[in-house]
């Protein structure tokens, strides 16, 4: 596809369950970013990949959050033992190099009941 894609577009889960969110970046983009936006708040940076390595994980809110990227392509963001405060839109972006903010995907809206 021409843009960044994310799946699922919507996810409703029960508190305590694990969820996995997927991001397919634009082909050839070496940098990949995960963000989240909670209701009424600004965009919150979570993690940044350059290739398959993550030089900056400082934004991950807790050890329940992890992310990986393989083949300089698809990335998955995993949230274990979800809590209600994890409810947010999770956005992925990719760019040619780490100097850009990236082109954004449509996001995954996560609702933890």
């Amino acid at each position, binding site marked *: 596809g021409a843009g960044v894609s994310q799946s699922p577009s919507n996810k409703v889960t029960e508190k305590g369950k694990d969820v996995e969110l997927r991001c397919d970046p634009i082909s050839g983009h070496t940098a990949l970013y995960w963000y989240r936006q909670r209701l009424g708040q600004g965009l919150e940076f979570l993690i940044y990949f350059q290739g398959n390595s993550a030089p900056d994980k400082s934004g991950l809110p807790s050890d329940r959050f992890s992310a990986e990227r393989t083949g300089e392509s698809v990335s998955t963001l995993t949230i274990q033992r979800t809590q209600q405060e994890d409810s947010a839109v999770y956005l992925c972006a990719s760019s040619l190099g780490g100097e850009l903010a990236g082109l954004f995907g449509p*996001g995954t809206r996560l609702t933890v009941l």
Partner: protein
Amino acid sequence: DQQVKQNSPSLSVQEGRISILNCDYTNSMFDYFLWYKKYPAEGPTFLISISSIKDKNEDGRFTVFLNKSAKHLSLHIVPSQPGDSAVYFCAAINTGNQFYFGTGTSLTVIP
């Protein structure tokens, strides 16, 4: 189609002086604007935001101005410090909660 534009890819300012970073947008449906700062090899960090119902928001050395009629946004940093050297991105959010980022301006503050 770039809906948010930062036409200056780079800016150099002397320490202690004012840095003015500019941003233009095309979509009048944007209702929230943000500025982010990014250091090399790090993710962007949120700096300051402004709602479309306001024309100014101030936080310490950082002030964001919004001119809705001109569809123009600016970030003022006073006084500029060497640690402010980074890439600055403006972003806009529409009523559908979609984010649009500018391409960034690299600020260098010269000691």
